[in-house]
């Protein structure tokens, strides 16, 4: 690249502070027309904040953002759009029962003589798709498209206004492996037309395929920009972690009797579209971590094991006995309990007290005859509150009065009440503070020590070494690596979840 190249977007020494967090601490970023730049960094490194600055959603505290040489100032989203910035966010924002063409022009439908000009709209949509070499029928209902096609429509909408800068926030995180290629093709073609593409992703293998260079962020700064082609996984991981080691606070290793029949055994489990084939054993007393990126199929795997989504094929065995048709009810009877990723929407029942939130997994255990007995509920809840050290004024306090960490403990307590021995914890520390995280780790260790088996899913890979006896890395619908004992390091897990190749070293 020469100096003559246009700087499509530029951020210099940008800082941004949100209440309690220094999100950006002097970030520098430059991208030229026609370039695909990957933005990489751990959660909280500042990627999203940088994107918000470039797209005008937020204004920097200090520093300068320029689009095509023009300062953005505090012009906001509208000004950024005028200057040619277009952002495609992670969540799909299409209207399912409208056609592809109508979604492409959502809210800005071309009109002729006061009426929506369907013919013209279809023509323009076809032109946009033709330019991207996409074969999507503009007349189809979006609801009938695959997720990948929907993502492509979102991207097409992003480039419809001929932007100079296109920001893609994890465009492939919801897609299955075979669908990713379609998106990468389109990104290449968009860049070929001279658009600068900022590509946020965690998937190193696809970054290598599509990006020219990689900017790594850490602690609110842009650490280094390296050519994508020769970047090694070790180098990138090193830049992301910045020499931080994770050896601290490893739990005391306990010996787990692996000669006994595993508590839970999964063989060749296939759950389309995300899980291609997964086998694993979970022993009594063991905490098995499952690490993977967003969209790797972590939650899908747990849901299938818990009987919510029937697997396409494969076997689930509990204590050596095969479960023929795993349903949620059957798995609960067998002692499997799942705490979901989205605690607010799927975990707690907001209007009920802590007590009822816990005993709801088994009302019969707290009943006398046909009626739920308040005194038994109270006794059971009090015992659980004590055992899990849930911080609550009283057992019947509304669960929404509790902090996130204590809500999570109560949700775990629900399964203890049901007598579950196999706990599937999906992101149990999401959205809870540091102290509560440590408490949840301790609780999980204690439950395992008491004989439970725990599957601990986390996208915050750095917590896996703190709590797990063994860790498997999920990538592309399969388990790509397994680490135990001293090999459970952040470097190892991160490398294995990001890149397929690192397994084969």
């Amino acid at each position, binding site marked *: 690249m020469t100096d003559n190249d246009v700087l499509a977007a530029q951020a210099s020494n940008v800082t941004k502070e949100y209440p309690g967090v220094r999100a950006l601490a002097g970030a520098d970023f430059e991208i030229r027309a026609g370039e695909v730049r990957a933005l990489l960094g751990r959660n909280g490194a500042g990627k999203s904040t940088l994107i918000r600055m470039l797209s005008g959603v937020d204004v920097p505290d200090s520093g300068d953002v320029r689009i095509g040489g023009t300062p953005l100032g505090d012009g906001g989203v509208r000004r950024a759009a005028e200057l040619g910035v277009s952002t495609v966010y992670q969540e799909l924002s299409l209207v*399912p029962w409208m056609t592809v063409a*109508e979604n492409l022009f959502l809210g800005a439908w071309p009109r002729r003589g006061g*009426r*929506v000009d369907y013919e013209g709209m279809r023509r323009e949509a076809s032109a946009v798709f033709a330019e991207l070499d996409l074969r999507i029928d503009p007349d*189809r209902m979006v609801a*009938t498209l695959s997720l990948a096609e929907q993502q492509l429509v979102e991207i097409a909408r992003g480039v419809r206004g001929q932007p100079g800068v296109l920001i893609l926030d994890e465009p492939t995180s919801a897609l299955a492996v075979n669908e990713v290629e379609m998106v990468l093709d389109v990104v290449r073609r968009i860049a070929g037309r001279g658009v600068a593409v900022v590509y946020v992703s965690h998937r190193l293998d696809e970054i290598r395929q599509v990006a020219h260079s990689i900017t790594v962020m850490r602690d609110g700064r842009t650490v280094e920009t390296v050519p994508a082609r020769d970047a090694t996984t070790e180098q990138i991981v090193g830049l992301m972690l910045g020499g931080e080691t994770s050896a601290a606070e490893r739990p005391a290793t306990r010996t787990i009797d692996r000669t006994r029949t595993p508590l839970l055994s999964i063989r060749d489990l296939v759950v389309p579209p995300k899980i291609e084939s997964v086998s694993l054993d979970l022993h009594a007393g063991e905490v098995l971590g499952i690490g993977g990126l967003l969209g790797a199929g972590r939650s899908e795997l747990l849901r299938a094991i818990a009987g919510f989504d029937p697997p396409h094929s494969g076997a689930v065995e509990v204590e050596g006995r095969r479960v023929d048709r795993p349903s949620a009810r059957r798995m609960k009877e067998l002692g499997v309990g799942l705490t979901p990723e989205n605690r607010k929407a799927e975990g707690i029942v907001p209007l009920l007290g802590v007590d009822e939130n816990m005993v709801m997994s088994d009302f019969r255990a707290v009943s006398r005859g046909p009626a739920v007995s308040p005194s038994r509920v109270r006794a059971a809840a009090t015992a659980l509150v004590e055992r899990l050290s849930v911080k609550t004024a009283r057992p019947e306090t509304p669960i929404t009065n509790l902090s996130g960490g204590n809500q999570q403990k109560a949700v775990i307590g629900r399964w203890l009440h049901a007598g579950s021995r196999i706990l599937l914890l999906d992101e149990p520390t999401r959205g809870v503070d540091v102290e509560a995280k440590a408490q949840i780790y301790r609780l999980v260790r204690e439950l395992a020590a008491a004989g439970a088996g725990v599957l601990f899913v986390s996208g915050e890979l750095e917590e896996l070494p703190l709590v797990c006896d063994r860790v498997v890395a999920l990538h592309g619908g399969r388990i790509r690596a397994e680490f135990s004992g001293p090999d459970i390091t952040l470097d190892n897990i991160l490398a294995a979840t990001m890149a397929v190749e690192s397994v084969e070293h």
Partner: protein
Amino acid sequence: MTTSSQQTQPGTAASPSASPSAGTARRRRLNEIGLLAAIVLLYVVLGSTASGFLSLDNQLGMLRDAATIGIAAWGVTLVIIAGEIDISIGPAVAFSSVLVAKGATAWGLGSWGGIALTLALGLAWGALAGWLVARFTVPSFIATLGLWSVLGGLGLYLTDALPVALPDNGLFRTLGGTVLGLPTSALVMLVLFAVFAYVARYTAYGRSIYATGGNAAAARLAGINTGRVKIALFATTGLLSAITGILLAARLGSGNGGAAAGLEFDVIAAVVIGGTLLAGGRGSLLGTLLGVAFITVIANGLVLLGVDSFFQNVVRGVIIVGAVLVNVAISNRDRAVRTV
């Protein structure tokens, strides 16, 4: 009924995945074709069993009955597509019939004045309900339940539940009678149908309604003022209720605070039978037109067949739920396409 994957439309780019657009379009039409077939079947059966069903008088009478449901149903279709609901139709129609009668007589506004007052107030209470929904996120079920109770109560309070006679003049005779041999109310219904079908399909406002009900967040991101859309929608159903009330009063010769009891459920049933999703985002005026026809023919047939009038409700209830079950089955199959 599924769709052959070879069946892509000639001339359009084929999508790489298997589900073809022609199939979707056909599946969408299936509901309407099915309803049409059901109506034809009803005509055949009732034509041969119920004496007088096919007579001109009975057919015109059915058109008049259809108008009472249909006019409001056009507006309620759009309200439901936007993801909301309006259950105030029955009392709103009754109160409107009282307003126009009182306005034209006791309040001395004259016939045109009474009509203007009724239309203006209908627009106003509809807009008020819409404003409560849009501005304060009051659930539309509750906002219109309030309206249901207030308007129903006012209609009876103002009249002591007694009919209020309309002045006997040419205007009201025309409104309650026929034009060119067709019931005036039916003509109004058909004209409004054309207007609503056009607005829903061909105006930016109409498409904004679909976008609002299909994905409100996406609509807002795309710069659509979803609050304004909702206010306009409820104002429209208020206006349509007023029109229905005026026509009903003209037909009966009086305003009646207890008229049109339960009409809101016939309206909602017609919309839902017509294939509009109660969850919003999807539906069509044509479907509602067929739904109105379906309900009207059944009600008429049950009368002609001499079914006990209490038992008619039982039969109608079963048929309505059955028709909606068929719809649900069809749209579930649609969704299956999405997840495969």
